[in-house]
């Protein structure tokens, strides 16, 4: 692979998040470099999804800051995050079930649609052209994810593995610079996992999209990521290349347990 990993694009500094007395995250810092695949791993309840939710603006951390392209924020706001070019997928599918595959992915382009609402309603002039451009982009994504056959199907009727792809497709439609993937392979069989891995690597390769990935499957994580952060009970216990992390004593004990 000949990709060039660039400067730091996204960083979190000393993030702490509490829900009442429960400390979900304590003093977490790490950075993500442009074009890399950065994994966040850890046992259940380690705070991985909470971390994504802080970056994504769903949760507001009590302490710490988040930097994106040099700008620093105390907390993020969902809309702003989307506008800055950070997209995400969900651990438990959060698709628009009643809408077709095309419409679901089209919603990802919503922020990019510029024409006036009246022109859109009547489909005249520039609005028509714009709609066509967006549809073309969406068709490319549908081709890329190999879901051509289902484009008109309401997503609620699709099998789980395909719904996961649509979720990814919607995020891709935003043409994000950073893609946050919350367990993209959870609940999939071997074949589906391989497909998903291929899509993720292709996105990273072809579009140069930076990827932040939460995943449970160790094999997958070690194979596809450039650097790995390990969380346990809301604390960071490891950070480095897959090789470094694999040999980290704390990480081994968190995963395998230790005798005290």
């Amino acid at each position, binding site marked *: 692979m000949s990709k060039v990993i660039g400067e730091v694009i996204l960083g979190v500094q000393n993030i702490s998040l509490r829900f009442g007395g429960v400390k979900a995250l304590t003093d977490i810092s790490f950075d993500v470099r442009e074009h890399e695949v950065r994994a966040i791993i850890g046992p259940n309840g380690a705070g991985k999804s909470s971390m994504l939710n802080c970056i994504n603006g769903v949760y507001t951390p009590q302490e710490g800051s988040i930097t994106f392209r040099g700008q620093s924020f105390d907390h993020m706001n969902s809309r702003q*995050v*989307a506008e800055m070019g950070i997209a995400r997928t969900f651990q438990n599918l959060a698709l628009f079930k009643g809408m077709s595959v095309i419409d679901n992915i089209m919603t990802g382009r919503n922020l990019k649609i510029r024409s006036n*609402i009246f022109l859109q309603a009547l489909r005249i002039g520039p609005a028509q052209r714009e709609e066509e451009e967006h549809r073309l982009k969406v068709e490319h994504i549908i081709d890329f994810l190999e879901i051509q056959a289902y484009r008109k199907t309401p997503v609620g009727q699709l099998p789980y593995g395909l719904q996961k792809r649509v979720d990814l497709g919607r995020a891709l439609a*935003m043409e994000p610079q950073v893609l946050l993937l919350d367990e993209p392979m959870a609940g999939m069989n071997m074949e589906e996992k391989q497909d998903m891995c291929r899509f993720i690597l292709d996105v990273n390769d072809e579009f140069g999209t930076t990827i932040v990935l939460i995943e449970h499957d160790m094999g997958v994580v070690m194979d596809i990521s450039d650097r790995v952060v390990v969380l346990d009970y809301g604390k960071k216990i490891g950070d480095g290349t897959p090789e470094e992390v694999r040999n980290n004593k704390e990480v081994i004990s968190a995963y395998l347990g230790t005798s005290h």
Partner: protein
Amino acid sequence: MAFFLEALFGGLMAGMLYSLVALGFVLIFKASGVFNFAQGAMVLFAALAMARFSEWVPGWLGLESKFLGNLLAFVLAAGVMFMLAWLIERLVLRHLVNQEGVTLLMATLGITYFLDGLGQTIFGSAIYKIDVGMPKEPVFLFESVFPGGVLISLEDVYAACIAALLVVVLSLFFQKTSTGRALRAVADDHQAAQSIGIPLNRIWVIVWFVAGITALVAGIIWGSKLGVQFSLTTVALRALPVIILGGLTSVPGAIIGGLIIGVGEKLSEVYLGPYVGGGIEIWFAYMLALVFLLFRPQGLFGEKIIDRV
């Protein structure tokens, strides 16, 4: 035959009016997944605002023209409905993001009582009239075909045209615009909608405002026929069977459901009534709704209910 046609027209017109109210329910449900119990109260509130403004405005400005007075009153009433949408979002919905549908339903129940009270406090609780200059006189059609012709009311025809126009505009808005797509997205999943940058707050204000405008139009038409009074809130009850029949998520469904129920009521009253001692009109719609619930719960045009297990 002429008699049949008269009953049919009467039914269609009554149905159109049900449809208008049903539309408000469908809009909010489609766009936020909330069954808005307050729709009836909104109709009354909007109609009260319209009736009183059209009375006050000419006085304030010394206007002579009735048309101008009505137009200003309409704009003001629309403004009031916008304020209302904004307040509902700010004070109620904003705090209930990501909550269950039932929670939101209960909240709209609260809004119903609040609006009933507020409307009558601000605008008064007597019976008011709205006069937007709709022709009251009946006309006779097909006089050459049938002896005596078919009697229909011009007012009903106007009302039907207005309703049809509203439906076309709303369908285009929902199906063809990015905002419409965003509205449907919000109805399905709040969190996902936020993640792609759809601002929930703004969307909710838009939806409730659009529903407020439909309530205003329905209120004006009903009000100019029956007068503006508290019993207007009960038209909402008449709209319930309509949405069950047409499907909670379908704009055309609300219209066709309304027409079927309007026509069904009239024709069954006229033709079956005499055999069972009359009064069919009162329960016909609800019986029809019950049958639909048993055999086709998503209604005629609703989204099929998908449940993966």
